[in-house]
């Protein structure tokens, strides 16, 4: 097959063995690469009853079919394993240069089995692949690890690594690459830590051959023209995602005070304009990216001085408004620290804001925190806790378990303030202001999450795109973010599309927001890049198959409709302030519509056998009691 490296690396951490296996083209036809490939391989290898932090778990890192292609934003890789945070399907994605470099070295994915007793790192220099001693690296942060490895193996190497948080098995530890790119959700950094894999250093001098050499560049020219002409692109270049603070405040969707409300009085101080006014240095891009939403920033002096990657909207929300903090320098610095230690800022801010609300309610006291005062907006404590969580020190040791487990340990009614689905903290979408986001969080395979479906078409006037993608009959309801009608249809379709996008290694920017590229563009690119003849219907079915397989993975672990639930605060307590004032999330109504669309049983949320047959998963479903 063209457009891929053609080889999967298997690293047996227990026996320190490396094996190279050719890519299974039949599997690719059924699941593509990236997220789909990992979904299948890990489903087959990780049975129920596996401890996520044991040697039995399998950690996979895979590029997509179009990673290292010339398509706009083709830089991405996916990591997956059984999650130590949710105890169900764990998956996370990142941009950067590491994924393309892996392809240039000759590999489409790296799979880790077993666990080592002592720290090791994988060094890949084209054909030469070795597991090397990481004694001198263990204990180092992500930036130090990058410095040391590139000094040792060559400045042009690309690194992927865990920091102290992953080593210390923080349940929301990230896997970092290219210093400040994060596969953060699902806590897969802890899986990497449990296997004692410190890093993967890659240098590749190979090449990617494409199927249609003759017309390749002219097709890309047209894709580039469209991407640059899209009205979203200039704003993306100017702000990245940072200006979403202003937009979300405007629609009342900015989680504040542990999601008590969706508006924050100090929003201007943590906004995209505030970052641009004082701290912005330049926009940055990843491999083949025209959107350039990465930011390089600098705080020149004071306790929060640093230089490097800037937060996205998610961190402005999670370490800012979510914790009631309008201290921008602490948000920027807290984000920097999270990259350095390798942690998910969403779960981090979600966990700290849970503790802050419990403090506010008098359920957590100085006795629990070792004297730290968790008042809303106490930025010094937010930064301090960031360090303590990564190091598992004092109260940080409890919070390193994530808000769900921390509340289980403490009890005293703190459980009701945990803003989670399937034990994972909510991202920065207050769903009472955008109903589709509530449903998306409830159904996402990896727990509370906006990206599995990324249903943004009702966010900001994409009526025309809804018309194009779904049909005029769904307007105006589907485009109305406060109306639950048709959101089940939208979330289902978006999930199928987005898991397909994660399987080809493209970014959600350009394919979903702005919705410039769609199935036909992907099908065309798979044709000219990989030589695959897949229609829009084929790709939709593949997406649906992957979502159903992720569901089976979770069903096997006991997940059903009872777990597709969001906190009572969001379904029962009307939003107190701002544009969504008085709104609740009509989750059950949307769930019914969603299950119906999926061909899943309304009562249990389990796929009907008929659905499983239709998407071609009979083999996989053997032994699972599914409704007929």
């Amino acid at each position, binding site marked *: 097959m063209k457009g891929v490296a053609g080889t999967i690396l298997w690293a047996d951490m227990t026996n320190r063995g490396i094996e190279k296996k050719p890519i299974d083209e039949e599997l690719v036809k059924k699941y593509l690469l990236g997220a789909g490939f990992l979904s299948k391989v890990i489903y087959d290898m990780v049975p129920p009853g596996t401890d996520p932090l044991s040697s039995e778990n399998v950690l996979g890192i895979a590029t997509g079919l179009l990673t*290292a*292609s*010339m398509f706009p934003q083709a830089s991405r890789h996916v990591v997956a394993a059984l999650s130590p945070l949710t105890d169900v399907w764990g998956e996370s994605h990142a941009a950067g*240069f590491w994924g393309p470099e892996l392809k*240039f070295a000759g590999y489409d994915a790296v799979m880790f089995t077993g666990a080592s007793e002592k720290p090791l790192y994988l060094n890949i220099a084209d054909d030469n692949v070795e597991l090397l001693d990481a004694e001198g690296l263990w204990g180092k942060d992500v930036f130090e690890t990058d410095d040391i490895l590139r000094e040792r193996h*060559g*400045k*042009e190497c690309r690194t992927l690594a865990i920091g102290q948080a992953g080593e210390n098995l923080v349940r929301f530890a990230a896997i970092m690459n290219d210093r400040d790119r994060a596969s953060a959700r699902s806590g897969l950094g802890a899986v990497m830590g449990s296997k004692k894999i410190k890093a993967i250093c890659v240098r*590749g*001098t*190979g*090449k*990617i*051959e*494409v199927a249609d*050499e003759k017309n*390749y*560049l002219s097709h*890309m*020219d047209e894709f*580039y023209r469209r*991407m*640059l002409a899209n009205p979203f692109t200039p704003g993306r*270049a100017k702000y990245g995602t940072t200006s979403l603070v202003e937009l979300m405040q405007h629609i009342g969707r900015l989680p504040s005070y542990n999601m008590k409300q969706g508006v924050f009085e100090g929003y201007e101080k943590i906004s995209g304009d505030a970052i641009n006014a004082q701290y912005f*240095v*330049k*926009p*940055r*891009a*990843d*491999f*083949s*990216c*025209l959107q*350039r939403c*990465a930011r*390089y920033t*600098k705080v020149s002096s004071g306790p929060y001085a640093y*230089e*490097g990657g800037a937060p996205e909207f998610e961190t402005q929300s999670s370490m800012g408004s979510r914790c009631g903090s309008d201290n921008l320098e602490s948000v920027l610095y807290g984000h920097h620290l999270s990259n350095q230690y390798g942690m998910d800022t969403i779960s981090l801010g979600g966990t700290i804001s849970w503790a802050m609300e419990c403090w506010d309610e008098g359920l957590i006291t100085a006795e629990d925190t070792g004297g730290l005062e968790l008042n809303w907006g106490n930025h010094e404590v937010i930064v301090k806790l960031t360090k303590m969580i990564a190091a598992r020190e004092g109260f940080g040791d409890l919070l390193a378990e994530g808000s769900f487990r921390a509340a289980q340990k403490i009890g005293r009614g703190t459980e009701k303030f945990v803003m989670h689905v399937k034990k994972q903290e909510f991202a920065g979408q207050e769903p009472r202001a955008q109903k589709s986001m509530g449903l998306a969080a409830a159904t996402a395979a990896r727990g509370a999450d906006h990206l599995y479906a990324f249903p943004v078409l009702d966010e900001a006037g994409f009526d025309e795109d809804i018309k194009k993608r779904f049909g005029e009959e769904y307007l105006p309801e589907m485009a109305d973010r406060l109306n639950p009608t048709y959101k089940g249809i939208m979330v289902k379709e978006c999930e199928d599309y987005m898991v397909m996008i994660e399987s080809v290694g493209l970014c959600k920017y350009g394919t979903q927001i702005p919705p410039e590229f769609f199935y036909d563009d992907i099908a065309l690119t798979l044709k000219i890049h990989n030589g695959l003849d897949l229609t829009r219907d084929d790709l939709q079915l593949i997406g649906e198959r992957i979502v159903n397989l992720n569901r089976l993975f979770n069903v096997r672990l006991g997940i059903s409709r009872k777990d597709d639930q969001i906190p009572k605060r969001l379904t029962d307590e009307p939003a107190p302030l701002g544009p969504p004032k008085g709104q609740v999330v009509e989750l059950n109504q949307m769930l019914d519509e969603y299950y119906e669309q999926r061909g899943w049983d309304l009562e249990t949320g389990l796929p009907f056998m008929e659905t499983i047959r239709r998407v071609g998963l009979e083999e996989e479903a053997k032994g699972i009691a599914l409704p007929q």
Partner: protein
Amino acid sequence: MSELKFVFGDPDTCTGCMICVNVCSMYYFKVISPARSKVRVIRIEPGLDFPLFCRNCEDAPCINACPEKALSRTSKGIVIVNNRKCVGNGACVIACPYNAITINPDTGKAIKCIQCGQCVKRCPVDAIWTTTEEGLKKKDSDGRLARIYDEQKSELYNKEASK
């Protein structure tokens, strides 16, 4: 000889996306491969991304270094490699002060930028342009670019690091 043209980039504007690198390897060799591209992009913190090309030196040490006389300057002032003569001995690679010549691992021949402009027209942020020594001096009247390049020269042109 001040008319000699070369492609140059602004490391403050360049985002590091490597589209120029990909365009080059695709245009000339029909593959995507930084190792087969005539342009390199190097990211150096704090916040710099350098797209690096042949500087079309007036004294062109690459031409003089080649024992096979495979490199020559055309009437338009472009230094080209004659593939029939090139045996890939790498003398030009060693002679180039800008580390702008490499040996294509597939063909075994030297490859270098010939200022074709394919990447320039596709840079999404207009960070690269074709210029001359004089043109660059005019554009860089405050010496910002000269200073940044000079400060980072040991890393930019270090041949060991780019192995």
